[in-house]
């Protein structure tokens, strides 16, 4: 069995386990978890919104370290730099996916709970800024024609990562419309024990899904790099044949 087939098989098994975890987590969130006393059923958005938000603050660090590796290796070891670059673009895209869901589910929840879709408080604004930074990272890579796009994007990524701790700490540093931290926010924070399985399985399921997307997108980028390298080699061979 070839290496690519083994990877494919492992990926497929991981995918099936992920789907099973997400389906079970959705059942827990919608059917098993108790209805919250103040907000009612709309509070169930919590089981998607919070895990997705947590993960949207973790994937930027994958992008950050991959970009640092790319900047370090780009002149020392170009092949390793290509690997780091593939990890960087995969993690940036997954960050945008998770941050988009965080913003949209937050708006849907806010409209039902606060009566407004959006407010320019520190948490929402810093999260929107994070989304914009990673969208600009992707657009820079896609649209730049300078030949230095990957290096410029890696530098942008290093600065974009600075926004992550600001998003995380914003609800502790400033008074915001957004609620105070549910976890690790002090002695009176946390959720009821009956809600913990639904929350825990959603964190697990969406983390597994994020890892699946990250690795699948990474494999796609490596394949694209291979296509580009083959095309370049064929062009060189063709030009040598013309010269002879």
């Amino acid at each position, binding site marked *: 069995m*070839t*290496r*690519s087939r083994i990877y494919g098989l492992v990926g497929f098994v991981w995918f099936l386990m992920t789907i099973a975890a997400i389906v079970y987590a*959705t059942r827990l969130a*919608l*059917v*098993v978890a108790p*209805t919250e006393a103040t*907000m*009612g*059923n*709309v509070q*169930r*958005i919590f089981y*998607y*919104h919070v895990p*997705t938000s947590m993960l949207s603050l973790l994937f930027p660090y994958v992008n950050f370290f991959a970009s640092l590796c790319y900047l370090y290796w780009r002149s020392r070891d170009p092949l390793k730099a290509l690997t780091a670059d593939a990890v960087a673009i995969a993690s940036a*895209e997954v960050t945008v*996916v998770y941050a*988009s*869901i965080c913003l*949209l*589910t937050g708006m*849907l*929840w806010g*409209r*039902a709970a606060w009566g407004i879709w959006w407010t320019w408080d520190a948490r929402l604004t810093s999260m929107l800024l994070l989304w914009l930074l990673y969208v600009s990272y992707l657009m820079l890579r896609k649209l730049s024609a300078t030949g230095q796009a990957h290096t410029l994007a890696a530098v942008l990524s290093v600065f974009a990562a600075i926004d992550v701790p600001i998003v995380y700490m914003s609800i502790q540093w400033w008074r915001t419309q957004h609620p105070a931290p549910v976890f690790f926010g002090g002695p009176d924070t946390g959720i009821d024990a009956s809600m913990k399985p639904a929350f825990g399985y959603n964190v697990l399921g969406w983390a597994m*899904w994020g890892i699946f*997307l990250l690795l*699948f*997108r990474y*494999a*796609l980028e*490596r*394949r*694209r790099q*291979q*296509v580009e390298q*083959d*095309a370049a080699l*064929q062009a060189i061979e063709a030009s040598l044949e013309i010269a002879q």
Partner: protein
Amino acid sequence: MKLSWIFGPSMEAHHLLYAYVTVWLIQGGYAAWIAWHWAHTGRALRTQNPDRRDES
């Protein structure tokens, strides 16, 4: 608890349903996009070099 309330007329039911549909549309759409490009790029790889054994 039964799930039928999620299709009810209230704003909380609507918004919960929209939130879950949004999550599945975005996540599923992105996964489908990767899968489509994966198949397309694999075809390009085999067309460029039919003797290649895929090691990606």
